[in-house]
């Protein structure tokens, strides 16, 4: 899986903290105030920068309607995994302390434009948004509750893929989430998937690509394998726009690229069309 690809990307300083705000996509420089004013949207190329799950929820759910669920469902260290840097448990406990989140997806019920929905938002700052057993469990439970309460499901993905520290059981979450979404659809409910920057590996190859409607944001990275892995396989340099939102739209895997300012309204509109 490819989430390490991202780790090595040389965007060490968040644009809003640097002397110059530098767009990670087009490398244009801006005064930090300008970047901030643009709400992490590059004024030059339109790239929609990464935001936390909480910020995304605030942009999406009607004010005061979001009720978080399954916060108690967290990681499980089934393998007692250790690598060169130490124990997985220590690493993820530190992540929990740092981010205040207990898994890579925040799930809750809410209203979007007045429509009752189940909303899940992934947070890339939590272990690279990796899909662990806790993440998969939250999504499966969300589907089951959504069926019970007749709510459509909206998931914003941001992930490097499966969480290898949880071994085979992280892989199995691809099956678990896809099966749960299959049941949700069979129950006559809509699933809207928003693939935000970046959505790759085991997450793009499971629930993120299964939307009745697949949406993304300008210039988001979406793909299965990592760019370097592919370049090493085909022995060729890939074009810059490879695996971009625009590339996926052109190849038929995305319904629409929606700008962040229009996202909530577009989701609400789709939910209205996809209701009985």
């Amino acid at each position, binding site marked *: 899986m490819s989430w390490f690809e991202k780790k090595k990307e040389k965007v060490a300083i968040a644009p809003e903290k640097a002397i110059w705000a530098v767009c990670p996509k087009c490398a244009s420089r801006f005064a930090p105030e300008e970047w901030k004013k643009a709400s992490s949207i590059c004024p030059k190329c339109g790239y929609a920068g990464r935001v936390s799950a909480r910020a995304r929820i605030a942009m999406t759910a009607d004010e005061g309607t979001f009720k978080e669920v399954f916060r108690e469902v967290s990681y499980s260290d089934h393998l007692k995994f250790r690598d*060169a840097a130490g124990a997985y448990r220590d690493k993820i406990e530190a992540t929990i302390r740092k981010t205040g989140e207990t898994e890579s997806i925040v799930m809750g019920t809410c209203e979007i434009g007045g429509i009752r929905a189940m909303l899940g938002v992934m947070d890339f700052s939590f272990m690279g948004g990796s899909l662990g057993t806790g993440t*998969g469990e939250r999504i*499966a439970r969300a589907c089951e509750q959504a069926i019970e309460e007749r709510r459509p499901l909206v998931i914003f993905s941001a992930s490097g893929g499966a969480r290898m520290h949880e071994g085979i059981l992280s892989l199995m979450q691809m099956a678990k989430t896809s099966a749960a979404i299959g049941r949700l659809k*069979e129950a006559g409910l809509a699933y809207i998937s928003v693939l935000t920057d970046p959505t790759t590996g085991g997450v793009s190859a499971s629930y993120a*690509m299964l939307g009745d409607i697949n949406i993304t944001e300008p210039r988001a990275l979406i793909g299965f394998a990592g760019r370097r892995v592919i370049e090493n396989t085909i022995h*060729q340099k890939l074009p810059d726009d490879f695996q971009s939102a625009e590339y996926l739209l052109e190849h038929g895997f995305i319904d629409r690229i929606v700008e962040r300012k229009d996202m909530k309204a577009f989701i609400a509109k789709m939910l209205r069309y996809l209701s009985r």
Partner: protein
Amino acid sequence: MASEKTTKNLSAWERVKLARDPNRPHFRDFIALVASDFEELHGDRLVSDDKALAGGFATIDGRKVLVLGHNKGKNVEENMAANFGMANPDGYRKAMRLAKLAERFSIPVVTFVDTPGAYPGDTAEARGQAEAIAKSLEFFSLLKTPVVVVITGEGGSGGALAIAVGDKVLMMENAVYSVISPEGCAGILWRDGSKAPEAAEALKITAQDLKSLGAVDEIVKEPAGGAQKNHAAAAKAVKKAIIAALDELEGVDAEELVARRYEKIRSYGRFSK
């Protein structure tokens, strides 16, 4: 190699080497030994016929089944033609097409999993590798006919899982099944690809490990020294396990079958605290 006499106490890395042994029986070897008849069917009806993932109707123990399997090839030319068992989206879409046909006639599906992973190529991305795998996972979870899975060699991540969602998951004794290759994991978490043996150990990828984690149902014993030493004996054990699984699933109402399959998938890594 330590596998001459016994394969009982092999390290995870030794199993990886056995699982990748070029002389290990592959899909076509198994079919020739397990089935009395096999009629291959080609193509996804969209783009191409993926040689890395083969399928067709077969007869096993007098029963009609649909078989699907990763195809690796025996020599360099065959390896190249089969893309070393790394399927394109076309392969997964062919698998779904054929399985849908099997469902219409209540024919059980038997899959043989043996792949380093889904093909990481530019055309694979352009045709939607992620979408094809995702769709396959959803599709097999809902399929209204029995699905028996046999992990025969390398279970390489999403490319393996795409045809490994089923009612009964069997795994050969020296097969491995992992979220990432040991080399890939070592490169990331150890920053050193040569630490693959350590990564293999940490990832818990052997049949024994997977059974205790609940990711596979049964381990199929291999002949002394490994399946590559005796294809006929290996195939005999696989055939016996497939027949037992088919027996168990025969006559189960389709709705009940899908409900049970969901419960099974749902239980993978179930959270309990």
